[in-house]
């Protein structure tokens, strides 16, 4: 018997008991739909993350912080006299360990680390723009090599002696700029409180406006000159005895550092009692969370498919029983066991094929509709983020997996059919 005839027969056999076939296909359909949608979301999200962060550029940067305290929550720690830096009372009753020059030396000593500098984190009070109103602001130092997405202008230049910053997208209209383009090149004033308790203003030039994005939630980016100036103002009037401290140290490694070497450097830093994280690590954590959610959803989809495969077994066992005579006749006429097995296997695969094809198409339809909805509602502020994304390959992989599951489910009935003895089948009343 030719393969094309076997496929044709399998197909028309399925059409013989339409209700049964449709019910079986619906079960597969649900599994396929769920798998398609969850994977669509998974790849949509990770595509966006990659787009946002994947080519961050600053691959030579390690953010080094003191290791988090293991004994956290077990009462206050013993006060140690300026040994590994001081602690800053964060105001929440938590002691955040600080770092000092000694730490910088220690970090620079790790082989592979090219340089280490304090991550200055001045905390400005407000910003004043063209409308002369004070608004609260967050700021972070700009790290060279980071790819910020800009709505207008350019990135802050850390080599420049001029005070520069980029503003978050939503700051520009509030402080009085009519458009992101208009803000570029204009001067703003940043208010900051000195250690002596006096409020002062520092002027800076807006060089760009940041696009809204998932990872950059709202802070302005200051260039080196501005960061240093703000930090200097902030420590004005500090008693000379007060220890110098910072929350983190930026360590730079060679740009060509391999990922193995990077791991080695990070573990060396950990051995010395530091927390070491690259930007890729931060992305990794985010991806892991998304991945875990997708995995849970996929788990449910697979359960649906396992249930569906019992449906396939049941449907085909019934079909084998009903067609006992037919099977016997075909065997009597010389159709071999293998072909009978194939006939029922293909029926199973066809059930998987139709269920997964319809499920995938419906999943893609729902995904694309969700994209439309999301981008006009809760993802409105994140341009370029489409909630779901589908590639022909991943859809094909899902379909193949489901067809494989269907085939495996079909082997039991197919074996039973292929083993029927023609005589018993022909005597069957």
């Amino acid at each position, binding site marked *: *018997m*030719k393969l094309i*005839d076997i496929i044709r027969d399998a197909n028309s056999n399925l059409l*013989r008991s339409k209700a049964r076939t449709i019910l079986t296909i619906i079960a597969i359909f649900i599994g396929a739909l769920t798998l398609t949608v969850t994977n669509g979301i998974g790849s949509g999200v990770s595509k966006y993350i990659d787009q946002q962060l994947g080519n961050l550029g600053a691959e030579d940067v390690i953010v080094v912080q003191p290791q988090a305290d293991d004994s956290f929550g077990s009462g206050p720690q013993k006060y140690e006299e300026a040994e590994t830096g001081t602690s800053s009372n964060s105001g929440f009753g938590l002691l955040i360990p600080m770092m000092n020059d000694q730490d910088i030396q220690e970090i620079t000593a790790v082989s592979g680390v090219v340089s280490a500098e304090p991550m200055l984190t001045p905390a400005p009070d407000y910003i004043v723009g063209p409308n002369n109103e004070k608004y609260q602001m967050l700021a972070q130092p700009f790290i060279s090599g980071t790819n910020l997405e800009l709505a207008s202008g350019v990135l802050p230049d850390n080599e420049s002696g001029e005070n520069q910053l980029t503003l978050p997208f939503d700051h520009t209209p509030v402080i009085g700029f009519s458009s992101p383009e208009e803000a570029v090149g204009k001067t703003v004033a940043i208010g900051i409180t000195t250690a002596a308790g006096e409020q002062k203003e520092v002027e800076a030039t807006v060089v760009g406006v940041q696009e809204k994005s998932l990872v950059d939630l709202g802070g302005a980016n200051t260039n080196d000159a501005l960061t240093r100036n703000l930090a200097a103002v902030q420590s004005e009037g500090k008693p000379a005895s007060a220890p110098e401290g910072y929350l983190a140290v930026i360590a730079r490694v060679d740009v060509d550092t391999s990922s193995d070497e990077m791991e080695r450097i990070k573990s060396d830093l950990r051995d010395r009692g530091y927390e070491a994280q690259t930007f890729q690590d931060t992305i990794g954590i985010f991806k892991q969370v998304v991945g875990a959610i997708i995995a849970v959803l996929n788990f449910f989809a697979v359960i649906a498919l396992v249930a569906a495969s019992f449906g396939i077994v049941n449907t085909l066992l019934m079909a084998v029983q009903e067609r006992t*005579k*037919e099977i*016997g*006749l*075909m*065997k*009597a*006429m*010389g*159709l*071999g*066991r293998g*072909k009978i097995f194939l006939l029922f296997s293909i029926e199973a695969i066809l059930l998987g094929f139709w269920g997964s094809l319809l499920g995938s198409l419906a999943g893609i339809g729902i995904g694309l509709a969700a994209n439309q909805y999301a981008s006009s509602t809760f993802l409105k502020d994140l341009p370029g983020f489409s909630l779901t994304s589908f590639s022909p390959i991943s859809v094909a992989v899902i379909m193949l997996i489901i067809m494989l599951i269907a085939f495996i489910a079909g082997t039991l009935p197919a074996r039973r059919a292929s083993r029927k*003895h*023609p*005589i018993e089948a*022909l005597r069957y009343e």
Partner: protein
Amino acid sequence: MPAQVVTTENVTKIYGKKEAAFTALDGVNIEIRAGETVAIVGKSGSGKSTLMHLLALLDRPTSGSIQIGSKDASKLSAKQLDMIRNKTFGFVFQQFFLNGNDTALNNVTLPLKIAGMSKKARNQRGMEMLEAVELEDKAESKANDLSGGQKQRVVIARALANNPKLIFADEPTGNLDTKTGKIIENLLFNLNKKKGITLVIVTHDTDLAARCHRQIFIEDGRIVRGGKR
């Protein structure tokens, strides 16, 4: 082709095991020669169908041997047996075993489809066979919509489709009224006369048996007369 198409030597068939064992055939020695018409005659339950199934290589004997042409059937592989049944045997069963939802033509071409013939070629051949049984106008009718006589003619057309050397017919007129039964009988004997197809007809109808060249009488699984010429 040697004179003997099928020969049995001391063939025994026992159904079931131990206490439930039932000897359906006991020391059967018969031969079927090329071109002859042979009736296997006996009461219901005497073992006629069992014998026919063995001759048609649909089953294996418990002991004894079956020669097909010059070959020992027990030495042939499942594939070779399938091949012999597909290429040289035609079957007519008491029950029609037609696929009721399918057309008469598709029922007729089933052995050709199994043989791997292309759709076009087998449809052409199938139409010729339906013409031979004067049912060409029913080619596209569903088998379910045909009368008993028409169904049995479709079955004969199907048995003829692969141009067999030997047709096994198990009570071919058992389900038909006398008049229709006669038509089917004539059709079968004509095939023997015109094409030289060997016929093995299982029946308890003595009139039908009398039309055959030779009658093999079977009683309680034993051949009582006519096993060999």
